[in-house]
Structures are given as structure tokens and as C-alpha cells.
């Protein structure tokens, strides 16, 4: 081979020519690249910058602290407690199983928890903290901290979790919160991004649910820079949210506790209303349940027990339960008759124990009859025949009108769920809803609060408050939200004449304070506190003619669910009413025997604002009352959480 290279010769010019062509093509392509770069960076630059930011920046929500709920004295009934939880990071833990096994010796973890944690680890990226256990005690937390060197990747985090310090007392009023479910999302039609946070707690029942929007607050945001796999690099900025509004209830925690304790063991409801402003001071529904169980996740056996109980612990019977008002409804009939002039206070009607209407016989509860009886005594002794007669005179429409005026058959607005409207029947109602004509027998049944009439304990208490004041008292459960008092105008007059009102009040006074009154034995002895009431016993079964002939079976001999409901309504003090109370004991038996004593005890507790002196009771009952009182499971004053420094 030669040392030197060949001369280009002839090909030289052609090579240069073709090289120019090639370079031209290359230059053209470079121009193309340049224009593409220009297009991407300059023309479309803004779009891509936005996309890049979306890539890079994640917006994380900061859940706001949920608003607290207080009783009327600023004692917290729903608060946010620090919830200590153990989290574990896979990439730091190394052998996840081994560490979990060690953790098991400190905190109880069943096999389900164990498997759930492992599954979560598998699903998430290695750097994502996985919650192993929640609601740890301080001791467990301390033990984990002490053993930290043996537990790599394990750390404790603190979050906020709802806690109801008074437990079952306020379960029916405040309700409870729980993790947001798909059903909730559908139901709420709420665009709040907070709801998208897994396990975010929202109100499920009661005030927690009805005031959800106010209690929840507004989410804060945290903009964080993340890398391609989602690892957080740094926080860019943070905008704090707005905590939820604090809610003050009208309920008195101490009285509420007393009511719940007094109702315990029965399926019953009691409502205490301040007659002057409609404030609901106590709203007891028994049996109750522990709302905290729902917050931390109730076990299926516990839940089943609550669902299967015939006493329906989950229902708030004060507003959801409707009962035939029984003889308490007679006041409405009396007022309707008095106002329409169908009767006056002096006129007497003869009760021979029954009346016959066509082929049907309508009985008075007293088989032998009351004889000649006037309005006051008809209430005092709860004569049925008197009201059969009155009802025929006034007619159902006027009775219904009066009942409506007193808040029956109307859905009252309170932040509670499932509020029942009850029922005040009219001819039109029966025609449209049942498709039958109204019969005179229906009027007679309605007159004694049986048949179609239905009322909730709340309505009965409200009715009593309206009787006591003659004003259209409206119920109120929320005293203030975020420190702003809720509207509370002086209720307008019902337009019932003073004479009529005084007549029925007098009758009610006689019920509780005159010998022969159906609740005389359940009177208040203290002169300044005397109570005016009305008993009610509402039948839940039909008494056949055959049974009546053989003698009506006594309640005690019937199975529980076929016994009568016991009702009692009352207001006190008679001279200057302050509170109205309604008590319904489901299938309790006679109102005077089973509901009236409860109502009296609650009334005294409310009037005195503390444990009433035994002198308030009739002398003969004091020893028994004292003994009964000892059996009540009341919360000691020091067991209440500290009230907020603000009144």
C-alpha cells in the first residue's frame, strides 16, 4: 500500500457539489429543528409551563378543625381530641413483618389489622406512611417511643378525632361523625374537596349532620412540590383554612344527664322546654348509646345489638317517635269547644261509663262512670264520655284546627334528623289518604287522643308550653353559632282567650294538685313550684267487645309490646310557668303511674337547677324518693369536662 492518498481528480468538483447539496439538506433540517424548538418553547411555552407546574405541584388539603359543640353553659359535648396513631414507612422499616411483630407486643393488633397493614404496604409507594393503629393511649405511645431504636420506620403521629365526653347523654342530640361514604357523597351533592379525603369525618346524625357545613369549616391548602413518583420534595406555600364554627346548644348538660339517667331501663322519651323562649333544655331518649363507638368504628356485634334491640336505642324518640297522645289531647278538644262556645266551664255532662252511637258503644275508662261532670273535673279525672260529647258538638275540623295551633301535626324545625310531623286527622285527610269517609266514631276516638291522632314527645312538650303561655312558642336547640346568638323573637300570641286558657290550666292544675286528680299522688309539694299536668294512656291494641265483657286484661299481664304507652305532660310553676315537660314511656302502662312520676322528678330537677330538696315532695313519699334517687346512675359534677371561659 502506498503511503499517500489518492488525488481527487475528476471527482473533486462533483464531491464538493454534492457536499453542498448535503449540507443544504442538513441546514434545512437544522432550520426545521430550530423552528420546532421555537414552536415548543416560545409559541406553546405557556401551555407547557402550566403542564410542568401541574406535574410538579400537588395541592394537599389541610383539614380544618371541626367546630366544637357546647351545652348552654359552654360545657363541651363534642370536642376534637388528639388522636395518636402509629404510622410506618416501608422503606425505613426494611423487614415490615418483623417490625410489625415487634409492634404487636406493644399495641394489640389482630390478624386482620396485620393483614390490612401488609396489604396497604403493598399498594402504596415505599415512602408513604401507612397507618397501623389509631386511638392509642398515652402509655402505648410512650412505650413505642422508648422502643424506637428497635422499631425503624415506625413513628407516632397526632391528628384530631371527634370525642363526645358525655357519651350517651347527648348521643341523640349531637349525633356522631363517621368517615364519609359513597352514600354520603351522593346524598350531599357537595363539591367540597375535603370530602374526597379518605376517612374524612362528617356528621352522620343529629346536630353533627344537620349543621355539617358550619361545623366543618373551610379547608386550607398546602402546595407541595413532588417528584415523578409522588415523593414530597418541599412545601411551597400554605394557606390556612378556617376552622368550623362552634355551636352552643340550649340543652343543659346536667339536666340532660339526669333525664337520661331517670329514663334508663325503659324505652322512653322526655322533653323539657323553657316555655318562655322555646329553648329545649333537655331532650332525652332512652335507651341511648355511646356515639364514640361510631367514631372509632363500631364493631359489627355492637351494631347488631343496637339494631336488633326492640327498644330502638338509635332512634331519637323525642322527635322521631309518634304516639297516640291519649288523654293529653283532651285539652285540645276542651279548648276547641270553649273557643267555639260549644260549652262553658259551668256546664256539666253526665257520664254513665259509656255512650252509644248507632250500633257502636264508646266506653269511658271508668266503667261505672263519672256522673255529672264539668270541664275542670273532666280534665282532672280524665273522663272520656265528657269529651265524646264535646267532640260531637265541635266537630273534628275545629279540634284539628286547635291542635295545629298548638304545634301538633307540624314538622318543627330543629337540627335533628327524622323529625316526625305526627298527625292531626281531618275529614279531608282521611278521604285522600285512606280513601274512606270520616265517621263520627273517628271523631270520638280522636277526642280522647286515640285513633289516627299521633304526636311526638317534642310536639307534646311544645303544646304544653303553648298552653302555659298562650303564645306560639317555637322550639330552639341552637343557642349560638360561632358566638352569634340564633334568632329568638318573643313568640306571638296564639289568639286564644285568657278565659279558655285559664279553664284548661285550672283543669290541669287539678290533675296534679287536687285530691282525685289522676296525678295527685305525683304532685309537687313545694307551693311555689306546683305543677299543672295531664296524664295520658294510649292504647296500642284494640279491646274487643268480648274482652271488655270478660274484663279488660291488665297491662302487667300483656306482653311488653302490647301494653299501653304512658304519657304525661306538665308545666310548672303553675303561677309563673318556666318549664314544660312531656314524658312518654313506650308500653309503660298507665300515664299517671308510670309517666307522671318521671315528669315530676325531671320538672323538679329543672326548676331547682340541682338536686331538689326532699321537702318538694309530698311527705309520705320522701323516703321512697330518696331511695330511688340513690339508684340513679348520675354523673358526678367533677366528671364533666371543664366549661369554656365564656358564658
Amino acid at each position, binding site marked *: 500500500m502506498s503511503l499517500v*492518498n489518492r488525488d481527487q481528480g475528476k*471527482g473533486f468538483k462533483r*464531491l464538493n457539489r454534492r*457536499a453542498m447539496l448535503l449540507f443544504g439538506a442538513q441546514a434545512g433540517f437544522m432550520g426545521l429543528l430550530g423552528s420546532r424548538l421555537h414552536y415548543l418553547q416560545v409559541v406553546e411555552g405557556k401551555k407547557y409551563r402550566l403542564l410542568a407546574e401541574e406535574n410538579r405541584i400537588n395541592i394537599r388539603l389541610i383539614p380544618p378543625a371541626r367546630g366544637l359543640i357546647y351545652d348552654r353553659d359552654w360545657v363541651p359535648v363534642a370536642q376534637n381530641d388528639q388522636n395518636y396513631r402509629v404510622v410506618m414507612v416501608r422503606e425505613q422499616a426494611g423487614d415490615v413483618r418483623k417490625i410489625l411483630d415487634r409492634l404487636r407486643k406493644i399495641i394489640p393488633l389482630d390478624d386482620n389489622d396485620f393483614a390490612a397493614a401488609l396489604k396497604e404496604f403493598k399498594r402504596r409507594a415505599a415512602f408513604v406512611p401507612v397507618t397501623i393503629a389509631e386511638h392509642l393511649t398515652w402509655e402505648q405511645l410512650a412505650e413505642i417511643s422508648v422502643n424506637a431504636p428497635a422499631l425503624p420506620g415506625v413513628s407516632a403521629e397526632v391528628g384530631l378525632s371527634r370525642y363526645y365526653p358525655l357519651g350517651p347523654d347527648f348521643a341523640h342530640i349531637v349525633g356522631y361523625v363517621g368517615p364519609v361514604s359513597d352514600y354520603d357523597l351522593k346524598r350531599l351533592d357537595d363539591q367540597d374537596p375535603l370530602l374526597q379525603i379518605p376517612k374524612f369525618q362528617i356528621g352522620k346524625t343529629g346536630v353533627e349532620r344537620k349543621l355539617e357545613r358550619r361545623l366543618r369549616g373551610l379547608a386550607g391548602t398546602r402546595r407541595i412540590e413532588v417528584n415523578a413518583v409522588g415523593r414530597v420534595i418541599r412545601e411551597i406555600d400554605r394557606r390556612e383554612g378556617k376552622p368550623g364554627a362552634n355551636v352552643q346548644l340550649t340543652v343543659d348538660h346536667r339536666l340532660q344527664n339526669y333525664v337520661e339517667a331517670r329514663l334508663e331501663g325503659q324505652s322512653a322519651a322526655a322533653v323539657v322546654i323553657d316555655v318562655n323562649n322555646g329553648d329545649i333544655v333537655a331532650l332525652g331518649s332512652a335507651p341511648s348509646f355511646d356515639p364514640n363507638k361510631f367514631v372509632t368504628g363500631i364493631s359489627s356485634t355492637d351494631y347488631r345489638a343496637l339494631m336488633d334491640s326492640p327498644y330502638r336505642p338509635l332512634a331519637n324518640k323525642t322527635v322521631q317517635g309518634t304516639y297516640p297522645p291519649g288523654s293529653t289531647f283532651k285539652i285540645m278538644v276542651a279548648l276547641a269547644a270553649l273557643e267555639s262556645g260549644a260549652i262553658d266551664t259551668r256546664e256539666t255532662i253526665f257520664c254513665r261509663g259509656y255512650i252509644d252511637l248507632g250500633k257502636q258503644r264508646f266506653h269511658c275508662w271508668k266503667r261505672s262512670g263519672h256522673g255529672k261532670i264539668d270541664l275542670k273535673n273532666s280534665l282532672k279525672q280524665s273522663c272520656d264520655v265528657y269529651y265524646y260529647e264535646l267532640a260531637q258538638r265541635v266537630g273534628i275540623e275545629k279540634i284539628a284546627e286547635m291542635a295545629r295551633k298548638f304545634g301538633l301535626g307540624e314538622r318543627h324545625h330543629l337540627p335533628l334528623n327524622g323529625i316526625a310531623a305526627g298527625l292531626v286527622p281531618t275529614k279531608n285527610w282521611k278521604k285522600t289518604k285512606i280513601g274512606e269517609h270520616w265517621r263520627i266514631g273517628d271523631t270520638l276516638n280522636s277526642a280522647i287522643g286515640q285513633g289516627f291522632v299521633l304526636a311526638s314527645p317534642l310536639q307534646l312538650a311544645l303544646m304544653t308550653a303553648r298552653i302555659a303561655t298562650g303564645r306560639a312558642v317555637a322550639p330552639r336547640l341552637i343557642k349560638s353559632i360561632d358566638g352569634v346568638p340564633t334568632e329568638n323573637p318573643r313568640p306571638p300570641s296564639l289568639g286564644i282567650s285568657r278565659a279558655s286558657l285559664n279553664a284548661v290550666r285550672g283543669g290541669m292544675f287539678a290533675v296534679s294538685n287536687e285530691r282525685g286528680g289522676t296525678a295527685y299522688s305525683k304532685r309537687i309539694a313545694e307551693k311555689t313550684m306546683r305543677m299543672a299536668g295531664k296524664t295520658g294512656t294510649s292504647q296500642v291494641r284494640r279491646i274487643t267487645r268480648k274482652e271488655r265483657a270478660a274484663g279488660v286484661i291488665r297491662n302487667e299481664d300483656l306482653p311488653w309490646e302490647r301494653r299501653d304507652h304512658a304519657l304525661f305532660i306538665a308545666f310548672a310553676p303553675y303561677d309563673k310557668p318556666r318549664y314544660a315537660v312531656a314524658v312518654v314511656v313506650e308500653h309503660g302502662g298507665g300515664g299517671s303511674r308510670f309517666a307522671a312520676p318521671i315528669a315530676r322528678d325531671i320538672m323538679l330537677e329543672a326548676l331547682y337547677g340541682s338536686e331538689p330538696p326532699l321537702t318538694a315532695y309530698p311527705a309520705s313519699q320522701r323516703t321512697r324518693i330518696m331511695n330511688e334517687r340513690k339508684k340513679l346512675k348520675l354523673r358526678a359534677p367533677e366528671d364533666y369536662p371543664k366549661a369554656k371561659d365564656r358564658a
Partner: protein
Amino acid sequence: MSYLVHNLKTVPTGWRKLLYLNWPLILLVTAVACIGFLMLYSVAGGNFQTWAEPQVKRFAVGFALMMVVAFIPIWFWRNVAGLAYFISLMLLIGVELFGQVGMGAQRWIDLGFMRLQPSELMKIALVMALAAYYDWLDDERVSRPFWVLLPLLLILVPMLLVLKQPDLGTALLLAIGGGAIMFLAGVSLWYFLAAFLSGGALVAAVLFSRGTSWQLLKDYQYKRIDTFLDPSTDPLGAGYHITQSKIALGSGGWSGRGFMQGTQSRLNFLPEKQTDFIFTTLAEELGFVGGMTLMVLYALIILFCLTSAFGNRDRFGSLLTHGIATTFFLFFAVNMSMVMGMAPVVGVPLPLVSYGGTAMLVLLIGFGLVQSAHVHRPRRAG
């Protein structure tokens, strides 16, 4: 022959060669490499050791090699061209049999101190071999079918071997680079027309064979074509590279986010950020201005090679310089097209900038050859 022998005397000797080197070209190459160091420093999040340091060392070695190659007379390189081609081919076959597979494609031989990719060596060896062939071939025979078939084989054999690895990018580079030298050497344009048509037919065959028993490409290669044609079909899978690359690049805007301020690459949204996709980081951080600057530097490198080749009456040196310039052009043209979403992702590094040993060494050896051709070019006496 006599002309050159005469002129041999005018060729500088010894250290005097230093003065006759194409210094602007050396400066340009070094400048581009320095941009590479800066970008590697940046994508490592301000860490010199991760990528920049090894790259600087490789460049130093490569630079020395370039100088050595430049000092060796160009006729020596012509004489060893065939040998270089043969060795490269053997290595390609060897790597096919014993080589390591990395990233599913590139194959290398582990030399201990570095991983040698024979396919990269072949890029230069093929150019050398073809230049030597046309230097040897009489001008009248250039377009004769037999003498066209021979270089065609020289191109096709390594190309098919590389394609089998499979490395579509390098195969493409070999084919176009080799074709360019044949074009420059004066092969009749009819052949190119024929090649163009048959190439079109091949593309059609590739596309239509899909899913049949005689499918020509692997499934993932088809997938790459699919996602190239419409990246949005698979934004998190195969289209992720292209989409993310365009986002990062586009977000740079006119003047970029500033050096070390690029978010997309540092946060790992970009794949292969230090190798094939490094241009994205550059464009994100230095913007359109930075991207264009690099492109102008590349264009200048090609221009200087060209001017050197134009004045070179030595056929081998001229062809070699053109061939290397074209290969260099193909490197960055394919890489940039890919990064900017104009071509499928084929795995070609950005020359002198991307992290990687063999490509850097091979390119610098190539520029050494260009320098050798420049220094030892025949000069007019007196």
C-alpha cells in the same frame, strides 16, 4: 501520485503540526463538551461527582486520543481503515454472542475500565472503510452495479447486526451515514432514487407485517412507533417519555428557568435525563436561547469540517471529513427530533453532551481523524 508525493513535503511534521491543527474546531468541540459538563452537573442536582466528573475524565482521555489521532498521518488511517472495519465487525458479532444486555437494547463489552459499545465504534469504522474504498476505487467504476453492491454490503452487514441488538437508532445512523458517503463519492443518483423507493416499500412492509407471522419488528418497536404517532394514547406508559420531554422542554420558554432551576428533570419526571434526554434539561433551564446556542455550535462544527473538506484534494481525507461531519449531524439531528417529538424514541445520545463513554470517545476519535485529514492535507508547494 506524483502530485501528492511532491506535496508530502509541505505537510508539517513533528510538533509543528500543532500550529496546523483546525483550532476553531477543537475550541467548538470543547465548548460543546463544557456545556455538557454543566448540564450533567445540573441534572445531578448540583452534584459534580455523579455524572459531570466521570464525563470530564472521559473527555480528557478522549481529547488526548483526538490529539494522538490528529498527529498520525492520514494515510496511515486510510491503510488501517479496512482493519478497523474488520475489528469492529468482529466485535459486533462477538457482542451478539457474548455481550451484555443493558436497558433492553445497547450491548457492550466490559473492558474493565469502560464499557465498549462496538456499535459506536462501527459508526466511525464504517465511515473510514467507505472513504478508503472510494479512495481506492477508480472514478469510472463508482456507479457500476458491482462496485455499488460492495459498499452496500459494507453498510448492510453491520446495520443488520445492530438492528438485531436491537438498536434502531444506530442502524439508522449507519444507513444514512454510509449512504451519505456513497452519495458524496458520486454514486449515480438513480441508485438513490431506487433506494428511496425500496426504503418506502420496506416501511410499508414493516407496517403491514404487523401482527402477521412474518412481523419484521418487535412488538415494543411497533409500540414506539404508535406512541410516537400519538403520544396521548399511552401518557403514563410508552408515551410518557415523549410527553414529559415536550412538557419539560416547552416549559423552558424563551430564556429558560435558569441554570439549575429546571424542575422537571430534577424531580425525575424525565427519563434518561442524563443521557438521551439531556437536551430537554438544557432547553428547560436555558430556554430557546440556550437550545439555539447549542444548535449554532453544532452547525459551526459541521461548517468547519466542511470548509476543511472543501479545500482538501485528498479524496480519502475529504470523504472521511464529510462522513464524520454527516455522522455527527445525524447524531444530534436524530436526538433532537426524538426529544422534540418529531421522531420515535430510538436511543441516540446528544453528541458530546450526553453522559456516556463510548460515544464520547468515538466522536473525539472521529474529530481526531478530521484533524489528521486537515493537518496532512496536500498543500500547494511554495
